[in-house]
């Protein structure tokens, strides 16, 4: 399986070419290099998928667990070894990696194609594609790595690209600040992950993923403090990258980047790295019930908090950003209750519809002179029909419209597991259900406010074919991708979980209540849509919303939610301001005062002695006399 290495190598090559020679290349050449490398990687991945299926790994589709998990290994060489530590450039692809690789390269390729048109005319066209290519490469390394250090390389690499692309339009300080915020907050999580790595190495003396997964059940007692600590540190790493509570504040600001970046990095792939990490290291989490519970609670809280914030945002990309946080919260919830497959499945569908929503939002914003406020849009249904219909597909999937949308299948699965899985419970399920209502509500609100009603801003340009084609493909997948996995009681099609079964175990469940759960979920979705329709289409003129907003309490709640539950302000007062003021205070370095004091003492002594040297000859003679007197007195 040597072609395995080409998959990350192709985007890397693209990056190198663009980084070294990009400024001398024409835009067309840049586009071909940038998009072409990722498309080629996507093709290779598909070939790999084909081989993978062909090799019988999916025999489990029919329900038989394959005895040994099928995977491809490739050792590219030693990276470094010192003492007991030995780290290699090793790739390891199994079905879990393959799902991620598929999304990264396939959605990545579509977004690259979209970007060739979207970014046209930008001054730093080459830099954009260089960063995007580097991102794809780093993300691929992240999911293909066979050891945690290489994974960490990819992990940090995607962080770097995220930083570079959020601050892509660097002229505005706000963008730079958003980029810094994203990098630093994820870096906090990364540091936790790194400490987790140290702890793991101290315990197991290896950082090879397969070895860790193999050895840890024998090495750690179930629920022992060490494994809980390790799992929690890994979770913290995931929280940072995946914008989960309490490290979620960077993602809404990260929308300062170009829309394709938001689509690829901050919706489809990078932010789900945390999900990948936990799914990959699920054996560690299984050993620690506490860490599992914390993961589930984190997910549940995050999905509610972010969904509430999404309800009141006015910036189209911020709505989508909060919705991304919320959807990843669902994934964490699923991971927390042990439904790893469900989490990955939701990642799979979410990648399509959220990328679609972001790309469509990008197209809308581009058409409306960079207008971000949804209340200054409207009436775009007729003017941008392709965008409207694809956006509708995406929003339906986000709202989990029953049966016809991919989101329904994945989210329904999570809801069910949250309720009935061994680790799950009613509280988690209710939170998820409430989240579903809110999600449906804000999806409806978004769609209605942006596309229906009257036009408030004139359309300046229409998206070209390179923009619409990826939208259409993604819309198609947003609707149909869910058909690979059906709920148990509807159809016995379990292609996706069967595919993953060799890597991720299915959770233990308590049976019963499936139909009721589904009905409740459907009702939740419909209720959300109904309320949204009622409020934002039927009676926008009556203005229930505006009336609400005039009440001080409601306005206060709205502002609270609008500001992301005040987390930003909290962190500002708790960490940022104290840090900044302390460092400002100490800018001149307090230790310098120590030496300044020494200098001052020397100066003072010098001045005292210097005063005796007053230029008067007779004074000096008196000094000599005093000296003689002193010595003689001593002699006496």
């Amino acid at each position, binding site marked *: 399986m040597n072609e395995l290495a080409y998959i990350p190598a192709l985007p890397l090559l693209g990056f190198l070419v663009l*980084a070294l020679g990009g*400024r001398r290349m024409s835009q067309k050449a840049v586009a071909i290099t940038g998009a072409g490398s990722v498309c080629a990687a996507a093709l290779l991945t598909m070939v790999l998928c084909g081989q993978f299926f062909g090799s019988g790994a999916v025999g489990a589709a029919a329900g038989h667990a394959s005895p040994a998990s099928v995977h491809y290994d490739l050792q590219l060489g*030693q*990276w*470094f*070894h*010192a*003492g*007991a*530590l030995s780290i290699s450039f090793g790739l390891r692809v199994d079905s879990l990696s393959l799902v991620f690789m598929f999304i990264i390269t396939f959605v990545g390729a579509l977004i690259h194609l979209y970007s060739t048109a979207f970014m046209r005319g930008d001054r*730093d066209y080459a*830099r954009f594609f260089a960063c995007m290519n580097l991102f794809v490469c780093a993300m691929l390394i992240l999911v293909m790595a066979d050891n945690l*250090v290489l994974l*960490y*390389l990819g992990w*940090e*690499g995607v962080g*770097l690209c995220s*930083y*570079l692309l959020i*601050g892509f339009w*660097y*002229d*505005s*300080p706000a963008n*730079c*600040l958003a*980029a*810094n915020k994203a*990098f*630093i907050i994820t*870096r*906090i999580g*990364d*540091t936790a992950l*790194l*400490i987790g*790595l*140290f*702890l793991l*190495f*101290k315990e197991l003396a290896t950082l090879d993923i397969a070895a860790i997964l193999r050895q840890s059940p024998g090495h750690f007692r179930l629920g022992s403090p060490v494994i809980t600590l390790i799992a929690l540190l890994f979770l913290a790493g995931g929280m940072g990258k995946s914008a989960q509570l309490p490290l979620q504040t960077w993602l809404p600001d990260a929308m300062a980047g170009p829309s394709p970046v938001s689509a690829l990095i901050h919706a489809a792939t990078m932010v789900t790295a945390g999900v990948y990490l936990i799914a990959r290291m699920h054996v560690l989490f299984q050993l620690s019930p506490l860490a599992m519970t914390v993961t589930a609670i984190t997910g549940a809280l995050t999905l509610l908090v972010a969904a509430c914030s999404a309800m009141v945002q006015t910036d189209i990309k911020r709505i989508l950003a909060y919705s991304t946080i919320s959807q990843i919260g669902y994934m964490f919830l699923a991971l927390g209750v042990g439904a790893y497959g469900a989490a990955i499945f939701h990642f799979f569908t979410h990648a399509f519809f959220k990328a679609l929503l972001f790309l469509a939002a990008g197209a809308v914003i581009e058409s409306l002179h960079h207008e971000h406020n949804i209340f200054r849009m409207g009436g775009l249904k007729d003017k941008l029909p392709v965008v409207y219909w694809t956006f509708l597909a995406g929003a339906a999937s986000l709202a989990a419209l029953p049966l016809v949308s991919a989101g329904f299948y994945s989210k329904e699965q999570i809801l069910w597991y949250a309720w009935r899985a061994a680790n799950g419970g009613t509280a988690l399920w209710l939170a998820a259900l409430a989240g579903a209502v809110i999600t449906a509500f804000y999806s409806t609100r978004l769609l209605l406010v942006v596309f229906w009603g009257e036009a408030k801003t004139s359309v300046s340009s229409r998206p070209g074919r390179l923009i619409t084609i990826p939208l259409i493909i993604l819309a198609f997948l947003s609707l149909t991708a869910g058909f690979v996995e059906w709920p148990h009681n509807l159809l016995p099609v379990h292609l996706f979980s069967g595919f993953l079964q060799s890597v991720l175990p299915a959770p233990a469940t308590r049976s019963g209540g499936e139909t009721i759960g589904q009905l409740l979920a459907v009702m939740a979705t419909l209720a959300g849509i109904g309320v949204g329709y009622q409020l934002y289409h039927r009676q926008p003129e009556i203005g229930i919303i505006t009336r609400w907003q005039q009440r001080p309490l409601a306005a206060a709640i709205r502002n609270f939610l609008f500001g992301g539950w005040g987390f930003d302000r909290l962190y500002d007062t708790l960490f940022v301001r104290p*840090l900044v003021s*302390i*460092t*400002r205070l*100490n*800018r001149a*370095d307090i*230790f*310098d005062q*120590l*030496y300044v004091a020494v200098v001052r003492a020397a100066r003072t002594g010098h001045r005292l002695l210097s005063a005796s040297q007053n230029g008067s000859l007779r004074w000096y003679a008196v000094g000599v006399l005093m000296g003689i007197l002193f010595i003689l007195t001593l002699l006496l």
Partner: protein
Amino acid sequence: MILVWIIGLLLCGGILCWLTDTWKAGYAKWIALASVVADGLIISALLVHFVTGTGPQAVSPYPAPQVTTPSAEPHAASPHAATPWLIDYRNTWIPSFGISLRLSMDGLSLILLSLTIFLGLLAVLSSWKEISERTGFFYFNLLWTLAGIAGVFLATDLFLFYFFWEVMLVPMYLLILIWGDSNRRYAAYKFFLFTQAGGLLMLLAILALYFIHGRQSGTYTFDYFAILQSTLSPTAARWIMLGFLAAFAVKLPVVPLHNWLPDAHSEAPTAGSIVLAGLLLKTGAYGIIRFVLPFFPQASTAIAPWAMLAGVISIVYGALLAFAQTDLKRLIAYTSVSHMGFVLLGIFAMQETAMQGVVIQLIAHGISTGALFAIAGMIKERLHTRELARMGGLQTSMPAMGNLAMVFAMASLGLPLFGNFIAEFLILLGAFPQYATLVVIASTALVFSALYCLRMMMRVFFGPAAPPTITPPTASAQQDIDSREWIILGLLCVGIVLLGLYPQPVMDLAKETIQQLTLNFRI
């Protein structure tokens, strides 16, 4: 003999530079370049020879029989074991005092020597246009500093070591004093006083060792390998070690003793900053590895937790201060404090993995910080300022420099793919089992380093350009890097990435030395 050539070439080159300058002004830099390149060729030949494993010749540097006492000390490595020493050269110098001209090279020395010449080359190149006054004398000082540093890395006679220690100090002092920035006198005096105070304590310690060894064995000698064999009472060992440690801690620098560094770095000319940050600081670390640990194993084990604590304080404190600076070169200088804290942490972890990390860190920090100083120098050449407030938006006018600066900023904040990550990872990993708390605190520096690096990038290269009233947009201020600067930064960039992707040769070279060293501390 080849070791003498390495140092001699630099010394002679320096003198030639000075002499020819009075005769013809333009020649000095070419002579300097030629001598550094010649040295570089020698070193590369050595590197190729020893890395590709035609193998180290069996060099036993251990002294003639009259010095070898049947030692029962636990720390003295058996003289006939496989030695890490690759080349050994000795000649008499002042035999009546037991001073000899002895230079020995092991893997560690070879690595640091290569770094010296590499950065020396870049220092010469980066001052190509910057220095226009008294160029001959400038290159004389630069080459002599380099020679002093190379000598420090090679000397295995304590007197010779001290000699080179001073040789690197005085020309550096002159570099700052004569070609420095506006506040250069203050900075130069501060630098000189700090290092000289430490150096004198070390001289006392060396003399103490000399007399103790002489009294024990009857032979008064400054020879490193002979003194290695002597036993010390615990009290004496503690005090003598503190003497050595004082000099090295000032050079490193460890936090309460670091104050000379920001001033010296920010005021020095670019080449001076590169040599200071890239090489001079390394001599402190080298001294600890070469002298403190082998001479005083028990005493250093006893002090290890405190030393590591000092290292951690340096890491965090340096990072916090770097974050607050408004002067670009001062900012970079404080990052050095932070990074060298990792070195101290790694050395006193006394563990092979961490020690390997230290070796990598020495090189990686030399390259990344040297590069950042080179960039700061280039910016200063264009904008005539070091103030962050007077920069901004430079990415627009100099995209190539911005991108390269981004590379080094990322290297400096310890992103994988660059050498610094490998170093910090190994150090923290190696120290973690024994000193988990310290390592966790040190790890927070990863966040702080992100803070200051990103702040630096934002203030210098991103954001809106500084208003023309503050920084007038002259033609030179708009220029992107030229080919000479491309060579400098490109070489550094390749170096740091290579170190990040393929650090193994470096680690293999240092392995023997480190294993010998850690053998002493294995419990």
